[in-house]
């Protein structure tokens, strides 16, 4: 089944027939994790780096922020039998406006926050496609663990 992950949303599954998909990552970031042994896959689409800006919101929807969304993604995958050592982690998104070096750099802040969290927890990134100004659509095929990325106007490619 095709399962859509919306903005500030997360889904995990161990059903080999599932495909997880998230559309149009602008400055948001998509994190895909996959345990080939357990056949468990997860996709998080977070929007902002830090829940401190609105802790109440984070309680209602932890997937809006990197610092609350990422732990939740891993935890839910563990519940389905995934194990940290086996997880393949891929990161996509974090785009910005063309001259967004100064102000509208939420994409970059999102990526920095994610790197910080991964570093503290010893998580390695297998592959990534971040930055620039493209919109990305990300798909995870649970049966194969294949991750496909389509960036603005480009062909779909495997990451």
């Amino acid at each position: 089944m095709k399962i859509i992950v919306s903005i500030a949303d997360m889904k995990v599954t161990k059903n080999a027939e599932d495909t997880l998909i998230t559309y149009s990552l602008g400055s948001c970031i998509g994190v895909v994790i996959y345990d080939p042994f357990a056949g468990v896959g997860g996709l998080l689409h977070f929007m902002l780096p830090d829940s401190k800006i609105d802790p109440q919101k984070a309680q209602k929807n932890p997937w809006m922020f990197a610092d609350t969304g990422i732990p939740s993604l891993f935890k839910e995958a563990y519940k389905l039998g995934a194990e940290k050592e086996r997880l393949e982690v891929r990161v996509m998104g974090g785009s910005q406006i063309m001259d967004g070096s100064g102000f509208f750099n939420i994409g970059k802040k999102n990526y920095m926050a994610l790197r910080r969290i991964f570093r503290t927890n010893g998580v390695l990134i297998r592959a990534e496609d971040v930055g620039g100004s493209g919109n990305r659509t990300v798909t995870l095929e649970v049966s194969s663990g294949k991750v496909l990325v389509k960036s603005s106007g480009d062909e779909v490619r495997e990451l």
Partner: protein
Amino acid sequence: MSLVDKILRKVAQLPPFPVVVQRALQLVANPNSSAQDVVDVIQFDQSITADVLRLCNSAYFSLQRKVNSLREALVLIGFNQLFEIILSRQSSHLFSGPSTGYDLQRGELWRHSVASSLLSGIITKRLGRQPSPVLFTAALLHDIGKVVLSEFVKDYFEEIKKLVQEKSVSFSDAEKEVLGIDHAELGGRITEEWKFPKVIVSSVRYHHAPFSTSDPDETVRLTHLCDVVAMLSGIGGGSDGLFYHSPEEILNHYRLNEEDIERFMIQLEDQFGQVKELLNVT
């Protein structure tokens, strides 16, 4: 016939914009107009009236009692919101089709438009200003040019993409270079054709270059800001991605900082979840 002429011919073929909406806009923008003026204008259009009543009695408003007339609706939800509903309902069909040139599925451009219009309310509130129906309209219609330009963008996509990716030209500049006109300028022509007020026309026309017009009206700058935040959120993002410029002055101009932008995105996500049902965007 030149390419630009071909494109402009499509503008002339667009259906006219419902006159009721224009009249309602004039009234809502005028502090001296009365509830009766408003009712007089709207009740002529039976389908709009029925639509408003149906929506007022839907779960979205969860009003305590049944609304039977336009006048009651006006009292309960206020003229601003009434106008926003009418405008949105009368515009959605224009935006709802797929825009293949921009790689947008059916409904995506409409989602982007609604997100921008919601941001107009969020941002004006943060700036301590009154809600502005004129800004709401400009934000909702800002990308109307894409509806017409889409098929031409599709035909010339490789050339446009080359300029954007290899020469770091913004998507709208690339449209202009390849097609002779970009979707913002085209949107200006369309809203002009539809007889929208001048400030809405320039807000649409300059939404990717807010400081290149001498129009002093803040609506132009604010429309740009609404669009940028909607793009960052990724709502209805297409093949043009975030390949646009946004001058740094825009935030200094309103004394806003990064955190404000983040809060706008949070509020947008909140509100977007609520209107989805109302506007049938899924």
